[in-house]
Every structure is written in structure tokens, then in C-alpha cells.
């Protein structure tokens, strides 16, 4: 059963690039154009990992992360923040506040993103195996 990943970005070409890269590696990908659409999809069926942009219409990535963390059962769901924001996003505090698994700046390398995703999900799998 492949891992399900929810990719959230209002820039369709970015979401499509991530989708194509990860789908080729065998992951099951679902995309959403904004935080609210992602949250609705999330509530229907939580994925194994969320990759989200920050600035989006209707609901941004930070708010989506907060909701995921406040949702019972998904407090520790791995989240990767993929953002073009610079220094104004205080990286460390965001990482700590939202328990992010990774924060990747745009422009990004899809290859490195895939490695990060595999690392996170592989770790999660091995932890699950140990338990």
C-alpha cells in the first residue's frame, strides 16, 4: 500500500512538478489549490504526509498546519513546508511551533524533496515497525 501524500500549492505548476516527481517514485499523490480545500480533503481521509506552500488564497499553509496539529490523532503527522518566503518567516520558531518535519525554500530540487520525503516516511515506517 503506497504512502499517500497531500500536496497543497496555489501555483499549479509547482504542485504538478511535485506530483510528477513523487508519483514516479511510487507515492499516491493528492493535490489541493489552497489550505481550505486541503483541510476538507484531509478531514475526508488524512494522508501520511503533507507538503504545503505558505501563501495561498482562502487559507494559508501556516493555518492549515495549525489545524492539523490541533486535530486529534494527527498531532504528529509529518508536514513539509515548501515556501518562497524569506527571512520574514522566522524559520526556527515556525519549525518549533508547528512541529514541522522540514522547511524547504523555493526554488527547490525535486530530487532532494523526494529524498526528504523518503527519509521522513521511511523513519515513520521503521518507528511503526519497532512499535
Amino acid at each position: 500500500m503506497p504512502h499517500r501524500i497531500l500536496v497543497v500549492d496555489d501555483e499549479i505548476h509547482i504542485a504538478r512538478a511535485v506530483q510528477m516527481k513523487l508519483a514516479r517514485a511510487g507515492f499516491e499523490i493528492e493535490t489541493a489549490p489552497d489550505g481550505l480545500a486541503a483541510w476538507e480533503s484531509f478531514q475526508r481521509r488524512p494522508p501520511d504526509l503533507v507538503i504545503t506552500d505558505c501563501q495561498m488564497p482562502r487559507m494559508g499553509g501556516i493555518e492549515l498546519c495549525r489545524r492539523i496539529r490541533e486535530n486529534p490523532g494527527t498531532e504528529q503527522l509529518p508536514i513539509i513546508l515548501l515556501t518562497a518566503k524569506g527571512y520574514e518567516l522566522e524559520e526556527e520558531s515556525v519549525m518549533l511551533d508547528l512541529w514541522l518535519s522540514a522547511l524547504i525554500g523555493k526554488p527547490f530540487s525535486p530530487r532532494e524533496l523526494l529524498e526528504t520525503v523518503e527519509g521522513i516516511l521511511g523513519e515513520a515506517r521503521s518507528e511503526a515497525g519497532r512499535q
Partner: protein
Amino acid sequence: MHRERSIWLWLCVPPLVASVPGALVAWWSAGGVAAAICVVVSCLGGGALAAWEARRHARICEARLQRPELRINGTQGTGLYAGLLEEAFGIFERLEAENRRAREERTTLEARGQVRQREAQRLEAALGCVEQPVLIVDPRGQVCYRNAAAAPLVTGAPDGGAVELVPALVELLHETLTRNVATNRRAAEFEHEPAGGPRAWEATAVTIQDPQDRRVLGAVAVLRDIAEQKQANTRHAEFVSSVCHELKTPMAGIRAYAEMLRDGDFNEPAEQQEVYGFIEQQVDRLTRLVDNMLNLARIESGVIEVKREDCELNDILRKALDTIAPTASEKSIRLVPELSELYLPVHPDRDLLGQAIINLLSNAVKYTPAGGEVRLRSRMDEGRAVIEVRDTGMGIPAESLPRIFDRFYRVPRNNQAAAGTGLGLALVHYIVTELHGGAIAVDSALDEGTCFTLTLPLGHRNGQRRKPAARLCAV
């Protein structure tokens, strides 16, 4: 002192002189009691005589004192009181000299006082004209002076009531007055919210010292309103951040697809074609952003070159629609052209006007949720060309409408929704109104949509002016 005493001695002499012969006669003729009565009567008589004589001479002396030329040898003919009068004249002349000196001193002091007062008035008036708030406090920190500009920084009655400073200033002045060993100058920045709205200040306080003994006489604080500077700094930082974001987003796409192409992630020709299309779109997007920034920089430096030519408005609109169509389609937004069937002759700079229309369409697509609609309409109205860009997007709050054409301004509510630089509409406004003599209006309802209406002068300029469609007039 002994001179004054001697005057009294002189006044005692006549009664004594008069009483002695009277007492002798009474003692010889009538014995002890009668002699005593005689002494008293003789003293009273002598006293009266002396008083009368003194009064007469006083009148003479007074007359002479009033006329200084008679004072020389003023004691002549005054008999018994010659010495007394001489002393009186001396005292009088001394007092008069002292009085004269005092009067002169007073006049000098009054003149100096007036000069000082005028100087103080001039300084106060000058400080009153200074736009920066100026405050002077005494060594205890009590306000002794403030100019008109400092009014928002003090509370309390202006008519002599207790004046209190804002706490940040109190602290600064206290520090300046108490810790003036290493330096007598201190600066601080603080924010304060008077009735007119929040302000940010930069205050510099310096102690005032007596030039002779270096004693601290108080402190003066001069303030500078740095609200605008702070806003400008914030706007600049936000602008830089927005530009970076706007540049990074298309770059991210190009970077990602280039790497994936190299990694051989796309085997299917159809996939490859899709990716090339994405890359092209993102390069065009970067070019538009750079063009916007360059044109704004040219406008600001006054070196923008406008190449106007005769052309048809709908041509420009169609090209703009073609440019924006892929972005609209990506977001599943319906792009509806509703172009006039009439030939709309205009004389614009094709690139700049095209850029303005693309900016409006791009904004409309950006702030309209997926599944919405963006409509571009052109028509002729009262001899002018009218262009409408209408969307079914999130709308602009009424309070933001007056500012949307300001450089770097971004509607706070929409700022969260999508990235942007705040340059697009400023450029549209400048291109339409300043460069093409047109007008721009905006109408918006929250969560319903926005409509930008541009009006441009109609007609060609190069001799082949085409008349707008003929009008039927009822005669």
C-alpha cells in the same frame, strides 16, 4: 549715626535753655512746688518755641533743597540751626546721590530686562515655529517650556495645570538628568498614541549646564516624528520581500522542471510538451515582473520612453487575453472576451497599454477563486474607448479602494491570499492617466467581484483619423 543723634541734641537745647532761668526765678520767689511747675511750663514754652523755629527753618530748607543753586552757603542766616541744617543738607545730598544712582541702575536694568524679554520672546517664537517638538525641563524633571509641536506629548491643562509627559520621555529625561557623567546626551525611540493616531518618535535629550559653574540647570528634549520613515522602511522591506517571493515562485518551477528533465523523469512526449509549456509560461511571468519593475523605475527617474502609434484597441486586448489565458486555464477560471464589434481607433504605446491590460487581467485571475470568471469588455461611449475588466473574485474592501493605486500598497485582506509586489496597479494608473490621457475607475463588492473601467481618448493621430461609428441624430 551719631550725626542723626546730634540733631536730637540740638532740638533739646531751647527747652532746657528756656527752663533754667524760669526755675531759678520761681525757686527764689515761691519755693519748690512752684519752681517745678515753672520748669514744666518753661520747658513746654521752650519746646513750642523750638518747634516753631524748627518749622520755619524747615520751610526755608525745603525751599532751598528744591533749588540746588541756593544750597551753597545754605546755612547762612539760619542762626541756631546752622550746624543742624548743614548736616541735613549733607544727608539729603547723599541720599539724593544714592537715589540718582539707584534710578540709573534701575533704568539700566529695565533696559536690559526689556532686551532679555525681547530675546526670550524671539527665541520662544522661533521654537514655536520649529516643526519638531521641543521640551525643556528643570532639574527635577518638571516641564518649564514646550513648543506648540510638543502638545501631543504632554497631558494636563495648558492654563497652568499640572503638565505630565508621556512615560517614555519622562524616563529618558530622568536618565539624562541623573546620569550625565559620561555623556550629557541620550537618545531614544518610542511610540505614542495621541488623539490623532499612533506616532513613532525619536527623542534626543541633552542637559543644560551653567557655563560658569557647570551646574545642571535642566534638560532639553528635541523630538522627531519618524512614523513616515518607519512606514517607508517597512514598506521597502515588504516590497523587497514581495519581489523576492514573486521572482522565486516562477524560478522554482523552472528549476524543478529543468532538473526533472535532466533526470529523465518525463518519458512521454506529451508530458515533455506540458513541461516545456510550463517553463515558457514561467519565463514570460518573470519577464512581465521585470518589465513592471523596470517601467516603474523609469517612471520614477523620468526617463520613460513612450512610442505611440495608431492602432486598434481590440488588437491589444486580444494579445493581452492570449498572454493571460494559460494562467486562467491553470486555475480553471473562465476568461470571457466581450470585445466591441466596432473598430476602436486609438493612439497608444502598444507595449505599455498592453502591460496595463495584462496587469489588470493578471490581478483579476490572481484574486478570483478557481471556477470563477474574468470578463474583458470593450465598447465605445461618448466618443471614448471604454475597457472593462470584471471578475467574480474576493473584492476589495471599501477602506482600501482609495489606496489601491499607491505604489507598494497591498490590500491587507488580499495580501494573505496571493503574493504580489504592489506595483501592478500603480503602473496601470500611471500608464492610463499620465501617459495616455485616460481615466481609471474601480467598483468592487466583497466576495462578489471587482470591475476596473478604463477610458481612453478615441481616434488616430497620423492623418488617417477614422471617425467613430456615425451617430444618428434626430433633427
